[in-house]
């Protein structure tokens, strides 16, 4: 036996899933919301989505070329960022602003902090907040069926009546991907079935937000009001696709629950007591910043770590 065989430390077999496959699943999970957005808002939305995705991928490629690193564009994470960003923009946004946002998301939020896995906040949301402060006018003007109007959530804030059925279906004003609760949930169910996300964060987020709205919303236990809040704005998109972003959410099981509750409280606070009708993006970004602290306080108890042996007879 002269030829030597491979030697490595165990384990010697690997599961089939790879990071790029997971990212691809997320893209597929976003498709229902994307397709509905294009149908709802027209070709302008499609153009915006394409520009965001293309700019994200291109800027990641260019940045890595510039600093002589191996290109990581084929892991699909830039596609996810671009798509998520586009779904969080109004379809009337000027193309150049969307492109600028995409560059900001990839270069400033993601690559400058070390690329995939190192960014401390969700790149898409970071870029959305950047655009919101920079271009408040275009970022908050929503047109639906040719008429510029307020989003259901803004109406709700002003105490006007909203059509919750329309909000569920998504035939209202808003950003490209957030309007249809049904489309978002379809994608979320797909991700849950594929084992990509689990319900811990979305559930604790939505439940704690619901409780907050009931306590401080001023309407008590008003089901229509509550439903409108749950269906309105980017809550569903945020809870299932952005709060669950692996990199910027806690990894500890307890931390996930704490993080979800924190997001729910912050969103409620911003929506009900803040100046804006919206609150999801800022809540998630603030939550992202607190992740290291949350993790520090939620180091799980290891198996069998207890003062005495557990007795179950």
């Amino acid at each position, binding site marked *: 036996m002269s030829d030597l065989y491979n030697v*490595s430390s165990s*384990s*010697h077999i690997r599961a089939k899933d*790879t990071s790029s496959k997971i990212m691809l699943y997320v893209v597929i999970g976003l498709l229902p919301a994307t397709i509905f957005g294009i149908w709802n808002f027209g070709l302008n939305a499609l153009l915006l989505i394409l520009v965001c995705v293309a700019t994200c991928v291109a800027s990641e490629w260019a940045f890595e070329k510039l600093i002589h690193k191996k290109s990581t564009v084929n892991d699909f994470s830039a596609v996810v960022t671009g798509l998520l960003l586009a779904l969080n923009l109004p379809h009337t946004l000027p193309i150049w602003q969307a492109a600028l946002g995409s560059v900001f998301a990839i270069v400033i939020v993601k690559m400058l902090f070390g690329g995939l896995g190192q960014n401390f906040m969700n790149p898409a949301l970071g870029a959305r907040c950047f655009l919101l402060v920079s271009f408040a006018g275009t970022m908050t003007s929503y047109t639906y069926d040719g008429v510029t109007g307020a989003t259901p959530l803004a109406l709700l804030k002003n105490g006007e009546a909203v059509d919750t059925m329309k909000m569920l279906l998504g035939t209202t004003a808003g950003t490209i991907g957030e309007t249809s609760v049904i489309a978002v949930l379809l994608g979320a169910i797909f991700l849950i079935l594929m084992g990509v996300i689990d319900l811990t964060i979305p559930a604790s987020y939505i439940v704690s937000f619901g409780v907050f709205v009931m306590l401080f919303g001023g309407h008590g236990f008003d089901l229509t009001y509550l439903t409108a809040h749950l269906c309105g704005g980017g809550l569903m998109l945020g809870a299932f696709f952005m709060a669950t972003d692996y990199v910027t959410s806690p990894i500890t099981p307890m931390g996930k629950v704490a993080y979800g509750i924190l997001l729910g409280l912050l969103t409620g606070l911003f929506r009900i007591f803040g100046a804006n009708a919206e609150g999801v993006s800022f809540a998630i970004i603030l939550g992202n910043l607190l992740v290291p602290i949350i993790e520090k306080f939620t180091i*799980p108890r*290891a198996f069998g770590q207890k003062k005495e042996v557990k007795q179950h007879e």
Partner: protein
Amino acid sequence: MKCAIIKVVDLCRLARHKIYKLRWTAVWAVSGPKAVLKNIFKESGARKMGFMTFKGGVHPHDGKEFSKDKPIRELLPKGELVFPVSQHIGAPASPVVAVGDTVLRGQKIAEAGGFVSAPIYSSVSGTVKAIQPRRGAVGDMVNSIIIENDGEMKEVEYSPVQDVASLSKEEIIGRVKEAGVVGMGGAGFPTHVKLSPKEPGKIEYIIANCAECEPYLTADYRRMLENPEDLIEGMRIVLRLFDNAKGLFGIEDNKPDCIAKMQELTKNEPRMEVCPLKTKYPQGGERQLIYATTHREINSTMLPADAGCIVDNVETLISVYKAVKLGMPVMNRIFTVTGDAVAEPGNFDICLGMSYGEVLEAAGGFKVQPEKIISGGPMMGFSMFGLDIPTTKTSSSLLCLAKDDVAASETTACINCGRCVSACPEQIIPTRLAKMAGHGDMAGFEKWNGMECIECGSCSYICPAKIPLAQSIRTMKKQILAERRKKK
């Protein structure tokens, strides 16, 4: 408050499982309603049986089909046999033969080097050719006794006992010690030490580890099918030592025939019980097995005896039976040769000291050139760069893989997906620990419970970024243990 949060988490898990059931709609769409019925029945049956389990774990492809149905074949060794003096945890044995001596099968060639140690016996008759360092399965050089086999298999006379009941507890342990029985599942901890806890009266469970959760391995499976009486007899002998103990056989539910057989054979044994376990890796890990069968938890600072348990593997219990009843020392074991690169995978009754290459020849050699050969299972086994390595008491299999997953997969950045966390049977955070190991952060590593790692490799297996997490953690654990020893 904490309790409530745990409940919420559990509810979320439950909800996820409920939604999981939706996949039947997909099965319906693809293969029609009959397929749904068939699958649901299959699953509910499995669930009823596989009730006992632990939290975490992974489901690698089990690969047992290669050698599952191959009956045990006895192998007679040719040429020279190599007996490393360290085939167990503890002090190496010291040779009691000299070069040129003639030895018989069953003759002691090295005696225990301390209390935590075990003697070694020749498995053939022949002449001692040399005593020199040889390479072992783990890759290190171990002092070894090399015996030239004369092919006659002349045996020493053993001293069987008619009635085990006539032996005192000390005599039973003495016979186990003298026969050189060690944990033959892979750890190699001397069995007589395990059987002598401080307070024998407090031992409540003797758990036979029949899980065989490592993919590909079928040695224990064949043993249970072909020699179940020996296994039960071994258990009976161990139970004699512990008056308050009950014997449990923990068997994974991918071996329903073994479960049925063992249940049938133990139905008139009031002190024995068969515990069907859910098929999941690492169900046969000592801490996991104890939890699954008794719901008691132990950590890295405790021994199974602290939870009133003693865990022994199938092969070990059979060796106990042979040692106590027949007076035969450990000279043989069941060994699986398997993998997609082997021509005729099978299970063999080998004489210890044969080389892996010789056993492979008996299995028809290679069908295709493998990229990797492993001593043991794919999850915790040791990869070897050659075949000229002797089998020892703890060698359970030779696994030859045509494709090496590890070399083929490229490590990418951690995306914090948390799959390692849900796979970890010790409920620690492998990815953080691996990062701390990379930074040499010993304090952080211990704070995040890194020392609790059982090195099962589930995290490395499941990681979508293909990061060798278990390897980093293992290295760090060794460093910390070395530091601690230095301080003492």
